[in-house]
């Protein structure tokens, strides 16, 4: 893969502050993203998977400068850099957009959907109104909506249609990169399929780079080129789609893959499942050593002493585990 790096993340940490006790200063920050390094290449779709609370959405938002970062840096090709020192955050936001999970709360109910899609054009371009409206109509066609709908309001649309409007809004300023933050998890199965097909088509046609955040591994299989598995603020494994699904190395990835319900009764009953014990630990106090040590079926003493680094096993696959 000689693709050009679009985004390079180095040792990124994003914390959420919790109210500290007046008398005893305790370190109770929620370590949502706790030392993540990864690259995103041009025109690829990177799938970011993990369970709720693992920090995947926070990571997506930090990349778009929507969350202040604690430590580390994010470098963009020519569009700038984000780091934790104030004042040198420079990001050409026109190139970096986001699609949200909930198409019901991410559209302003008081604006017509045409205005919602037009708003980024108002901010980033100096166009005449008629030009903007033509652009909005083109965008509606691009996402499979009737252009005559632009004067309607969000409540007149179904969930799938609203998500299409969210996609049109993200595409309005012709971005290079879009964070898709669980864009289909609020939708019905038959509508999910429509939206992921649309996203895949747009990604190919427009040459977009996507960070596709999801907890649904079968969807990620469909849309992603590479996959990063996140747990408790860390990347445990990253590699090409085929490597992750067919040759998973990390015990967490293995458990995650074995827990996906397969729509095939014979397969589903035959399959050996790895059932993990317990829940994800509290991110204010991650376990010492490996973050997965408290639930790992292959735990050895070393796991709670030292933290395994994310080490490349071959050029398409890196794993953070002492046993691999």
């Amino acid at each position: 893969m000689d693709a050009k790096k679009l985004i390079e993340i180095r040792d990124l940490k994003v914390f959420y502050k919790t109210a500290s006790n007046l008398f005893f200063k305790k370190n109770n920050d929620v370590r949502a993203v706790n030392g993540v390094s990864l690259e995103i290449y041009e025109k690829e779709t990177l799938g970011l998977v993990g369970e709720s609370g693992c920090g995947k959405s926070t990571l997506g938002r930090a990349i778009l400068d929507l969350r202040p970062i604690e430590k580390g840096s994010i470098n963009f090709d020519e569009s700038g850099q984000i780091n934790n020192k104030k004042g040198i955050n420079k990001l050409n936001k026109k190139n970096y957009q986001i699609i949200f999970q909930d198409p019901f709360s991410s559209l302003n109910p008081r604006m017509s959907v045409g205005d919602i899609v037009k708003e980024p054009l108002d901010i980033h371009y100096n166009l005449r109104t008629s030009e903007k409206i033509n652009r909005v109509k083109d965008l509606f066609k691009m996402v499979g909506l009737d252009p005559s709908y632009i004067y309607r309001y969000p409540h007149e649309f179904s969930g799938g249609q609203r998500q299409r409007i969210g996609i049109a809004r993200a595409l309005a300023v012709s971005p290079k990169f879009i964070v898709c933050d669980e864009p289909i998890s609020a939708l019905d199965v038959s509508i999910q399929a429509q939206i992921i097909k649309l996203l895949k088509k747009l990604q190919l046609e427009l040459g977009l780079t996507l960070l596709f955040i999801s907890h649904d591994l079968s969807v990620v299989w469909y849309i992603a080129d590479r996959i990063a598995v996140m747990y408790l603020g860390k990347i445990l494994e990253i590699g090409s789609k085929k490597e992750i699904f067919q040759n998973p190395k990390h015990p967490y990835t293995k458990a995650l893959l074995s827990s996906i319900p397969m729509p095939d009764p014979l397969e589903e009953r035959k399959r050996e499942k790895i059932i993990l014990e317990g829940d994800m630990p509290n991110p204010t106090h991650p376990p010492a050593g490996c973050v997965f040590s408290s639930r790992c079926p292959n735990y050895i003493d070393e796991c709670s002493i030292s933290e395994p680094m994310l080490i490349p096993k071959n050029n398409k696959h890196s794993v953070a585990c002492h046993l691999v």
Partner: protein
Amino acid sequence: MKLLEVKKLNIKFNILDGIVNAVNDVSFEIKKGEVLGVVGESGSGKSVTFLSLFGLIPQPPGEIVSGRAIYKSENLLDMSKKKLSKLRADEIGFIYQDPLTSLNPVLKIITQIIESPVLNRRLTKAQAISEAKVLLKHVGISDQKKNYDSYPHQFSGGMRQRAMIAMAIANKPNILIADEPTTALDVTIQAQIIELVKKIKDEIGMSVVWISHDLGVIAGIADRVIVMYAGYIVEEAPVLELFKNPKHPYTRGLLNSIPRINSDIDVEGIDGIPPDGLKKHIGCPFSERCSSVMDKCINSLPALKKIRNNHSVSCFL
């Protein structure tokens, strides 16, 4: 052995905007000890069907228009409220999608578990508490960190669902109605809960109705599956048959909407949007979205017909 037999159930909701025909001519049965999977998208009537049988939909706006539901040679739909409440307590267990909103936030978990045994089986509080502790241990909640003295907010989503299960099985029900019990949970926790329900089902020998929109989950747990669309049963078959040989275009569409891991088959999805409950159907409710629609489908409603042993479909094709 038939445990429950539902015949021609029709339910509507009278709301400000008009009438929603939520359940239309639905007939099915639950056999003893089986897991009946119910699949459908939001608004397909899958939850309403099962809640209504046990008097759990508010009336008004809900209205059971017609139908019979025979359980132990009595019609549930004619039963007095008091009798129905007693039946729910003794013989039917419920677990819901969102364990946080279905638990009372100001009562300790254990207080909520003993409520029914104390009221209905006249146990003393001490008896009920010791029984509840055994139950909690059984569903995988240990007494570490004073778990037995906790409130719902102190539990994680998976633990809350375990507590709900403990509550549902406290009186050893004949039927457990599980309404999307794992939808709000992560996949690794979902796998834990599914294993737990399977284990308990075998121990008590109860029947389970597992309502879900996730065909993967249904494939793993159900013996027989009902597919619902717009308040109609469109297909019913044993689980192996349904996944190997789906007949209704909607069932096929659903199966083709799920990306298959480790295969390059493209997803197809289903065009259009889910039906508007307010609209009255003359023809097949799926006709607007069906890729093989014919004139006949728009004008008349196909009946649910048996095409072979235990496999029924409502489609002209």
